[in-house]
């Protein structure tokens, strides 16, 4: 049984068919890249997978159960975690507190009224921070973090529920070119050791072809090609509509 099965997924905004009937699968431990020019429908697709948008049609099966239309927090509990295209963290909290909150949520303790957060799963939070290389910054307010570190922090938060499937929306966008590889290597490591399925969107072709085991190409809401990186690189349709534009690769 595949970890994620998407069938005939659709979403339209007014007249714009942002996602127009796409189907694909992701296996456990597999790393799949979704590419496509801006506006191709990648983020919309992610938003439906994680529950932020209700699909107009289609099925989304996570580990054999349909999650289409569930609310984001329910889907998260089923083991699907994500990061955002623009890193989203809790700016009024410290770095450690961000991860603490994710851990508390995982343990269903966000309704605790009495014990202060300060001492709650702090050690575990620090362990997650150490994994993404932010141990030294645990005490800092998030607002003081450089953007690339906030992306790392988001990964640490996304891992707090020991997810089965991780969605990364442009994980390296806004990260300096030199740091991208390090960030993606980190993610690949984590994924391998935990046997998580990963679905990520990316514009940097080096990253795509370096880290995706399979590549899915979207164009105007449709899935136009799918296959291993070498095949996609060679696909004439893809070359024309995507790589041919050239500008997207930088």
């Amino acid at each position: 049984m595949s970890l994620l099965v998407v069938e005939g997924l659709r979403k339209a905004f007014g007249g714009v068919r942002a996602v127009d009937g796409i189907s694909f699968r992701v296996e456990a431990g597999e790393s799949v890249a979704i590419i496509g020019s801006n506006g191709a429908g990648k983020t919309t697709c992610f938003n439906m997978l994680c529950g932020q948008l209700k699909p107009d049609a289609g099925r989304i099966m996570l580990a054999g159960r349909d999650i289409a239309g569930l609310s984001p927090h329910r889907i998260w509990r089923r083991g699907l975690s994500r990061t955002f295209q623009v890193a989203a963290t809790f700016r009024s909290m410290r770095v450690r507190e961000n991860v603490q909150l994710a851990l508390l949520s995982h343990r269903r303790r966000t309704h605790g009224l009495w014990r202060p957060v300060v001492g709650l799963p702090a050690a575990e939070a620090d362990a997650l921070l150490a994994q993404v290389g932010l141990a030294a910054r645990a005490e800092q307010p998030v607002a003081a973090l450089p953007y690339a570190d906030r992306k790392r922090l988001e990964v640490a938060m996304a891992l707090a529920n020991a997810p089965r499937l991780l969605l990364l929306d442009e994980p390296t966008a806004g990260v300096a070119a030199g740091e991208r590889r390090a960030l993606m290597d980190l993610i690949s490591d984590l994924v391998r050791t935990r046997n998580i399925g990963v679905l990520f969107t990316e514009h940097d072709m080096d990253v795509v072809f370096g880290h995706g085991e399979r590549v899915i190409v979207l164009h105007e809401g449709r899935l136009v090609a799918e296959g291993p990186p070498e095949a996609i690189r060679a696909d004439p349709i893809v070359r024309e509509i995507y790589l041919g534009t050239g500008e997207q690769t930088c």
Partner: protein
Amino acid sequence: MSFVVVQALTGLADAASLFLVAVGLSLVFGVSRIVNFAHGSFYMLGAYAAYSASAAVGGGLLGFVAGAATATAALAGLGLVVEVGLLRRLYAAPELLQLVATFAVVLLVQDLALAVWGPEDLLLPRVPALSEPIIVLGHRLPLYDFVLIALGPLVLAGLWLLLSRTRWGILIRAATEDREMVAALGIDQRWLFTSVFCLGAALAGLGGAIHLPREPANLMMDLGIIAEAFVVVVVGGMGSMAGAYLAAVLIAELRAFGIVLFPEITLVLLFAVMAVILVVRPYGLLGRPDVAGPQPSSFDPHPASAARQGLRLAIVAGLVGLVAVPLFAGGFTLQVMSEIFIFALFAASLQFILGIGGMISFGHAAYFGLGAYGAALAVHHLNASMPLALIAAPLVGGLGALVYGWFCVRLSGVYMAMLTLAFAQITWSVAFQWYDFTGGDNGILGVWPAPWAASPSAFYYLSLAVVTIAIWLLRRISAAPFGFALRAGRDAGDRAEALGVDVRRQRWLAFSVAGAAAATGGGLYAFLKGSVFPDVLAIPMSVDGLVMVLLGGIDRALGPLVGAATFTGLKITISSATDLWRSLLGGIIIAVVLIFPRGILGTVGGQRRGGAK
């Protein structure tokens, strides 16, 4: 049958003024996202200006027309002053500051109108040409009603032409639909905003002028119309002109027939319809959610951190000091301080949802008032003892917040603010008109403390104890996982949702907790005053709470207490020294908003220490 037609026509005529005020409010909101409380004041000033101009010309039809023209022009000018002098500085500020700033204008205008035109109602002498009777199905209607009936659609059509056929109008519509785009086109937004605001003010002025043949110019016109105009704008859909007309007609007809069918609950009817429409269509009849666009930023939050050890000591010392006060203070001082404690709890509960939850409530008085009424009704109808009544207070208020909150937390920003306001107004109108149960505006009397708590010092200790415990609990909740999850929902809602936090539920529960806390204060307040009246539920009470929070500093732990002490202290010392209490309060609000948006503590304390130790 003929009665129905005539009554419907009267309703249509009544809708004219309401529409003119509401459509301006709606236009201004659409473009600048500002909810302008002072719009009702513009309407009132329009009526006064028209009266004076008409009198100067010598009355009659000519006088009336001259009055209307003068009012329109004068209010456009005043709109310019207010926009350039105040609002222009606030477009980027949190909505809360915008709302209270425009309320400050209301206060200033009240004193201004009183100073210029005096306290007496000014009745425009009858204009015979306008009273000319027209017979409809055997009923007599004045010609002027038909003028008004025609005016609404005419203005609507004129505005429509203006917005769809002129370059200016197209820019306005673009700005309503997509602010970034207009900014990107390199249009000077400031000019656009100013001109819309002037147009809105002019329409309100005209609305006041055309109402003058039917009602004397008086000092109660401003708050009278603004509550209804809000209803119209919210029901019609913020930013929608046609929606404003539709809703104005709906509301006016509702009243015209409401007085026949339910003569004693007309107000309840009005706000209940509003609530139902908002529950079914949260963005109004013709409103669209995407018109809301990105909300202005909320307060820039700071890292949370618990009180340090040394400060705990300071707080304990402070409490000991307060415990000693009755040893040397007189009865009146103790009463005032009890009132301060009660308002501190009210403000702290508001700060809880505002600061940590990022929810704007413009109707927090509802829960304070429900607590007060809960306690008073328990005493009055059930003969409850004072402790029982004080326990009933948070139950009633908490339950109210649970019910209202369920609807309110689905919205955010000004939409949420308007819905909370609507619910507070419903509660107010029920208390006001349900004569048999709540005593209407006779209130509930004889809610005096039990003998053991009757002396000022005993009551002082009681309020100090209850309020200290309640505020301490709120602090505790803020620092607990619940508070963090709430804060997470405020900082980044989607992020929190995608981490398993049910943000809406978190907000809902927080709203209810705050409601129960406010109601606890309300219960004490009922016994402090020995009575309860609908005023505890009214808009000014909600505004007082907001001002206290802002005064103290929205993100300061001691803010509510400082805010309540300063506010109450000022009010009591100054309102007995001068009649200009309202101007002064307005001035304070504007000063806070423009100069000290971080409140007294935020300003005196300077830049607070960072999150890192």
